[in-house]
């Protein structure tokens, strides 16, 4: 599988780009923020995204999806990264749909995937419990009693949790906190009793939630089929790769805006882009972005071809993009100078998104550490 897009994928990317530029430019995010939008995203744009098929990119045709695979979803995420579009793309399509694809029972798939493909469902993947991504730290419990599971525990950083119709909850049916064994996934409607959702607005103006489950009872048909810890790791790996694709889009846009500014801004009678110290820093960013493109496309393909080193390549992609986007968004502000520090221009939005994306599903340090472990040191 060559590391280039085929015609179909390239066309998809182009149409998503056009759509987002028109319907969800960075100014839209600013407006959501300034008007204190209760959803944190634009439901009408989300409906149009569904119409465009974006909600079904990673759903097979059998269930009403477009079956573009993750290379397709990656292109959409990359374009969404360019305009910093706020939408449930990550929470619902990248994470929850992936979980159902991998671990849903046949009836669960038959019931949920068509609804997801249509864009009728907003779902959140409720997994984190600590300040840092930690797959084995599951203190939330699910206790079987007759035909019902009772869920107890607190989740944090549940993306779009405040608007979710349904959660995929990572909970423990046996074992102790930090055991790899005994972890399971459950589908939980957000309107069940005993659920308390606190919206949290993050620095990138997107939303996560703290979700508390207190004796929340669900029928046992809502248990999914997580066969082993490696399945859960696979969901995280796919999530990390999808995020890396989104971060690649943000990094490219931020970089291009900065280069344009270097050509336009005059100081000391010349364009500041003529200063060699800035030129060399720009060239190094260019190299980082080219390297980033390679690891992202390689990683997306690895999902679709089901490579067995997916965890390793996911860490590679997420770590590299974390580093690239951090560099580019910091340099973006520095090279814009005082102007870059003002809320009036858009360059500052990238550094905010960079920080949140960095922490989502494991930061740079987490993935470096994991890569080293996978390499046996």
């Amino acid at each position, binding site marked *: 599988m060559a590391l280039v897009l085929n015609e179909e994928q390239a066309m998809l990317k182009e149409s998503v780009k056009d759509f987002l530029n028109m319907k969800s430019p960075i100014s839209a995010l600013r407006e959501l923020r300034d008007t204190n939008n209760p959803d944190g995203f634009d439901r009408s744009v989300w409906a149009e995204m569904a119409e465009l098929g974006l909600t079904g990119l990673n759903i097979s045709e059998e269930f009403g999806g477009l079956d573009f695979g993750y290379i397709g979803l990656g292109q959409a995420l990359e374009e969404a990264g360019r305009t910093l579009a706020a939408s449930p793309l990550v929470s619902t399509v990248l994470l929850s749909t992936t979980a159902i694809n991998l671990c849903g029972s046949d009836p669960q798939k038959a019931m949920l995937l068509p609804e997801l493909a249509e864009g009728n469902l907003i779902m959140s993947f409720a997994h*984190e419990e*600590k*300040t*840092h*991504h930690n797959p084995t730290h599951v203190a939330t419990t699910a206790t079987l009693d007759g035909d019902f599971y009772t869920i107890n525990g607190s989740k*944090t*950083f549940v993306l779009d949790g405040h608007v979710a119709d349904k959660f995929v909850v990572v909970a423990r049916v046996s074992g102790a906190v930090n055991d790899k064994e005994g972890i399971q996934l459950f589908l939980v409607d957000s309107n069940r009793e005993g659920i308390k959702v*606190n*919206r*949290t*607005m*993050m*620095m*990138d103006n997107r939303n*996560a939630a*703290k979700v508390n489950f207190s004796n929340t009872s669900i029928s046992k048909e809502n248990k999914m089929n997580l066969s082993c810890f490696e399945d859960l790791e696979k969901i995280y790996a796919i999530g990390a790769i999808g995020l890396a694709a989104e971060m690649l889009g943000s990094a490219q846009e931020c970089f291009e805006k900065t280069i344009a500014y270097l050509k336009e*801004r005059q*100081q*000391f*009678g010349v364009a500041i882009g003529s*200063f060699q*110290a*800035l030129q060399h820093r720009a060239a190094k960013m260019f190299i980082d972005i080219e390297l980033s493109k390679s690891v992202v496309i390689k990683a997306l393909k690895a999902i679709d071809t089901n490579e067995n080193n997916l965890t390793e390549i996911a860490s590679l992609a997420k770590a590299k993009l974390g580093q690239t986007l951090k560099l580019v968004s*910091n340099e973006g*502000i*520095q090279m814009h*100078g*005082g*102007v*870059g*520090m*003002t*809320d*009036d221009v858009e360059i*500052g939005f990238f*550094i*905010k998104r960079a*920080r*949140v994306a960095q*922490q989502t599903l494991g*930061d*740079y*340090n987490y993935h*470096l*550490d994991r890569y080293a472990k996978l390499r046996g040191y």
Partner: protein
Amino acid sequence: MIDHLTEFRKETSAWLEENCPVSMRGQTKDIAELYWGGRNSDFTSEDQKIWFKRMHDKGWIVPYWDKKYGGGGLSPLENKILAEEMTRLRCKQPLFSFGISMLGPALLKFATEEQKGHYLKDIVDAKIRWCQGYSEPNAGSDLAGLQMKAVDKGDHYLINGSKIWTSYGDNADWIFCLVRTNTEVKKQEGISFLLIDMNSEGVEARPIQLISGKSAFTETFFDDVKVPKENLVGELNKGWTIAKYLLTHERQMIGGIGEADQKFSTRDVVVDAVGLHNGVLNDSILRTELVTHEMNLAIYDMTIERAIDEAKAGNNSGAASSLFKYFGTELNVEAMEIIMTAGGMDELAIEGEATSNGFIAKRFLRSKGNTIEGGTSEIQLNIISKNILGLPSK
């Protein structure tokens, strides 16, 4: 000599003990809690007022200025002892004023005796609150490329243009500005230093929203503002000399912001957030970043100590200010990056229940401006390579 100083320390200490109200002691958490003076400013407490008056009576609002300007007339060594005793007893500053720190040095060096008597006295008496008008939207690092015009109209100058990055411009009474008084010559040679009453007709200051949220900065607009000619400081078209002199002062102040502004130990925050295992930080990569930062910080402090000792020994070098501005702000940025990494997902929230409403996140974002304001890091490196290393221009 030594006897006199020992005596002075003893007396000063006793006087401070007796006269500084208890509520005027302790760490200053935020400069906003201090008394800033000015036409519209009032004391926030009776103690604050008493403390100001007592210090003012002693001449210790600006203890090292000459008595004829309302200062205390202290010698450098006496001034140092007073400062040390105030630190020891944790006395707050009786007046926080850009007039003292930023305008004062220029007036003392470049103003006429009449101007000194007038303006310095008003600063000491807290009658006038000053702000600074150097930067302009289109000038940036090319400060000398400023465009705000002052046209000679016989008995006054007519001012048109705007200034940006003026701290607390919306609360100040007067502004000291660099203005263009000649457009025919090399840019540095057509600049003058002018004092402008913010109450003048045509002046408007608007607050600037930063990526970190509200800020103390304003953009200030001047639309056909008339300024009396006697408000010129120094010679006409020689304002650049004054600006360069003051910038060195400012650079030193901002370089120091790193620590002064930081109300917590980076080490403690990180260790708290990440935890130890067998006495070693749980995240080995972050551990390396933290120890590198702590070493940098320790060596930075030693370099300040050395610069002071060198200055005392008469080896004063202008080099120091660019070095401190560059490295001090880099350290501050480094600290905030480390703290954000340590805080993880918790520190991303800027709004919501059970969050700190972005206390750290906003500081993190604000820190990105440190390497820009007061002369960008790039400008400091230019200064070092040209002025100190003597590397050639093209």
